[in-house]
């Protein structure tokens, strides 16, 4: 199953979002939170992101979502350093994209389809 990694500046935000995703996607989808700095402060952590990607990687690829553009820089560096290149960064709204991706991943869809679901979440209206 495609894995999902949630890169946020806030540890609480990443874990809270993970709770929501597990509820919609079920326990089988590997969903990992990578929030906050190494010591749990606001920011992003290279090491937490790397560990999260490795954990979420079950062979079907990993989708990495970020809360803000500045998290992209850390995530991108991790992806460039990482030997296995089956993880992709997606430009999608963090919460909305993650929910859409988790739902699709839960159906057994592949990385391309899961990525597309995250991207298309941008155009889904809420009101």
């Amino acid at each position, binding site marked *: 199953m495609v894995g999902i990694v949630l890169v946020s500046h806030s540890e609480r935000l990443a874990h809270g979002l993970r709770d929501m995703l597990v*509820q*919609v996607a*079920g326990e089988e989808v590997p969903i990992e939170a990578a929030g906050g700095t190494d010591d749990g402060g606001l920011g992003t952590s290279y090491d937490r992101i790397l560990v999260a990607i490795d954990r979420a990687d079950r062979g079907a690829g990993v989708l990495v979502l970020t809360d803000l553009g500045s998290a992209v820089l850390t995530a991108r560096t991790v992806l460039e350093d990482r030997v296995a290149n089956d993880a992709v960064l997606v430009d999608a709204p963090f919460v909305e994209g993650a*929910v*859409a991706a988790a*739902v*699709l991943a839960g*159906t057994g869809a592949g990385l391309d389809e899961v990525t597309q*679901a995250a991207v298309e979440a941008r155009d889904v209206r809420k009101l």
Partner: protein
Amino acid sequence: MEEELARAWIAAVTAAVRTEADRLTELDTAIGDGDHGVNLRRGFDAAAAAVDSLAPGSAGDVLGKTGTTLLSKVGGASGPLYGTLFRALGKTLRAGGSLAEGLQAALDGVRQLGKAAPGDKTMVDALTPAVAAYAAAAGEGEADAARAAADAAAQGARATVPMQARKGRASYLGERSIGHQDPGATSTALILAALADVTARGPAR
């Protein structure tokens, strides 16, 4: 509608939701987040308790109180929707309207809040035919009208199976939502079945 009938209805819905909670949750697990049964149980347990401790008044008071309680206790999308449904019913009855008018107001409120149309695979697909059936059979008396509404709701719920969801969480699944019965349409059918049952029996004393 008499107050006692309203109280009996809420009690009957609460009992039905308890019995069917697992099935509702299962349906919601297939195309949602698997909490519809839990949500409604929490909501109707609270509503039943609130209605029990409500001073005697009118059917409108009972249904309004039910709506307000569901609104704050359910926690899912069905909370504000059923909250709106029961509040609209209560408001119409308090203003002297008939149950048929109340059901129409309830449907209007649900549609205005949720923006779902028939065919979107939501509770609207059970509620819409139910309200129409009640209105069509209203001349035959409350019991027959309620039974017709319940039957129409059940059929409306079954008709959601082949639909693709366009509202609510199930819409995230796109085409993959096809082939499952909508949990909210299913619980709407339970609510109307409870109405038919208590109306057939007459108010519990």
